[in-house]
């Protein structure tokens, strides 16, 4: 594919991610932080996020699998997941954390398990989307092009 086309695809894809709520303004902040001294900043941070989230999701699964669920611990994990997902801009993942914490407060194992299920799904979706995005970026760079900057705006209107 030629560079221009790749770039257009990239922009559209990015816009859709914003529009559909997979990513929010925070992701744009990350993009803005990337510069020549840290050219792979976004990828680096998102990778950190992936690693950390998978660890947390595993911990959550284990914690909820106990005969006596330690809800404080579960809540702590969810809290952290909320923090990291919000920091990278993974909005839908973050949004799943809020009801999850409520379930923890109510000490409702069933509800927590449902929340966990949902959050896993959202996480996998987000991971998928982001990886697609990064692949596109790589292709553009490989084709010699520059990665277009897509700004997030509140009304999901995107500007280039």
């Amino acid at each position: 594919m030629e560079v221009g086309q790749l770039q257009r695809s990239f922009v559209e894809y990015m816009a859709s991610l914003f529009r559909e709520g997979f990513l929010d303004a925070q992701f744009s902040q990350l993009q803005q932080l990337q510069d020549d001294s840290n050219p792979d900043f976004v990828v680096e941070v998102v990778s950190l996020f992936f690693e950390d989230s998978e660890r947390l999701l595993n911990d959550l699964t284990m914690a909820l699998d106990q005969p006596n669920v330690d809800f404080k611990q579960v809540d702590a994990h969810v809290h952290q997941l909320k923090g990291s997902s919000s920091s990278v801009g993974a909005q839908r993942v973050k949004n799943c954390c809020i009801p999850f914490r409520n379930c923890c407060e109510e000490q409702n194992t069933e509800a927590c398990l449902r929340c966990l299920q949902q959050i896993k799904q959202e996480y996998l979706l987000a991971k998928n989307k982001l990886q697609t995005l990064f692949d596109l970026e790589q292709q553009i760079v490989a084709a010699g092009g520059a990665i277009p900057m897509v700004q997030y705006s509140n009304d999901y209107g995107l500007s280039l």
Partner: protein
Amino acid sequence: MNIGSGSLVTVPSSTGSWKSGDVVSDQFPVGLRVLVVDDDPTCLRILEKMLRNCHYEVTKCNRAEIALSFLRENKNGFDIVISDVHMPDMDGFKLLEHIGLEMDLPVIMMSADDSKDVVMKGVTHGAYDYLIKPVRIEALKNIWQHVVRKRKYEWKDNNFDQSGSVEEGDRQQKPSEDVDYSSSANEGNWKNSKKRKEEEEEVEDRDDTSNLKKPRVVWSVELHQQFVQAVHQLGIDKAVPKKILELMNVPGLTRENVASHLQKYRLYLRRLSGVSQHQNGLNNSFMGHPDATFCTISSLNGLDLQALAAAGQIPAQNLATLQAAALGKSATKSAISMPLDQRNFFSFENSKLRFPEGPQQLNNSNKQIDLLHGIPTTMESKQLANLHHPSQSFVGMNMQVNSTSQHNNSVLMRLSQSQPRTQLLNGANNGSQVSRLPLSMQQSLSPVLTQSGIVDNARGSVYNPVSQASSMVDFSVNQSKELQSYNFSLGSNSSGMSSLTNQGMLQEEVNSDIKGSRGFPSNYDIFNELQPKSQNWGLQNDGSTFDASLHPCMQGTQDVSSQLLLQQGISSTHNSGQNRNAPIEKPMYSNGDEIGHSNTMCGSQLNSGGGNMLAVKAERFPDADHQNTNIREQFGRDDLMSAFLRQQASVGPVETEFGFDGYTLDNLPV
């Protein structure tokens, strides 16, 4: 992923060129040295990048322990710390306290949790700011303001302190024990002291009025341990900055340094044991703080108590109000909520302080009276403030001393007015009890108050002057627990102490709240802790402790008053000593030297103290002897009350005295 490897970044050597406050280069705040602590690797990395983009020097770590060791190894290596609230190895607030105690750096908390109570916790623990995740770079760009602001206040504080002692001629009280620095400062030799400081690796003189740069004492682990040892050696109730300083024997360390550190330490201890108190106090604390003095009092925090005492200018009213406030608060809290640890620590025998109901009072009353007078209110202004509108009951107390028993009542009333007050009043029934109020504050106060029946009468009369105090005292409402005890002591001085007791009480309350409220917290914390002590002091009721405090009044027995003061942390300014002749308002007893100076002392102290009015360290009650005799006669609950009132009357227009002008400590850093 484990950030472990990446988290420990070599700490850059102190490049903080702009760190020295005086040098504000064009590039400021470029180079701000930030330590960021977060167990979330993603956030940590993002923050690091953002801070770098702000041109700050960043060190990141993912464990609180590591962060602390960083800070300890590199004293003055950082300007500001940003920490997450929820961390696996240590609670973020705990880290915050450690840093505050040991390094005195501004700390910013952050969390994905934006619930009000957590944010409030940050405030009460002294966080300089609270950021909600996800943190935006814009939020980080301005963190330098906290560093500058803190420095500015510290500098001002130092200066104030110095100038206060030096310049206030009428500060007789200028505690002789004041650190040499003071004296040298008096000679306008601040620079010298500063120099001396600079030579000290660990201790930087804070008072470097000569230049903008505000040298800061770095409380290394060793230094802090020395400090703790000294405090333990002295006993919580006797742990006044001056003595601590002497025990520590660290050249270059000023009493002010110790005083402010002591405050923090007390706050820390309070937190340890009585976090719950905060909650109570929180609601109240912000109450009634109408008085500027009140605020100032809190700001006194750290200002030397002695100075305050010296100032002794604190109008009795102020003290009274403070005390009243304290009392009021304490009343509510009645149970000194002092955390157990603290209690032990301070071994105040809070219970002792409480007004001994009935018979005990009589015994105490003597003491109490003294207490009131010159309650050694070591109450630091803060505490007074904390006392939170002591004015209500407490103030009445002080003021009342002179006036008739009515005053007492009013004082008591005041106390009772505030919610806790009722308790006080109960206890304070005795006329003499007025002073007791503080005790009641704790819990016993109420009984005392009731005894004197002050509740009804006092309300009216006393209240006015007290109002001032009360506002101050209000702060402590929340804290009430501690404050109560504390205030109580203040107030207990029938003579003039009443206010003091309030303070004590308030202090507790304030302590918790103080932080939030305004500069007080720090002050109050100490008081709160002192509470147990104070109780002795003001609250004669409690009996034993009270006795001690009472004594001072009587004969200006220093020990007693000092005890009281110490315990209560009341910046004695209020102290009661004043009651005697002068309106009780001036409880400020600066180190009790001025025995006959009660009035002035208090007043001046308050004023001069610049907030630490209460810091009257175990001051004796200046007019102790005079009042003592009076009081003696009356000892006994009722007697005490009346004695107190009498004194009040003799003192003169109490009310007027009370205007806590003294409290307007403008330089009180918040």
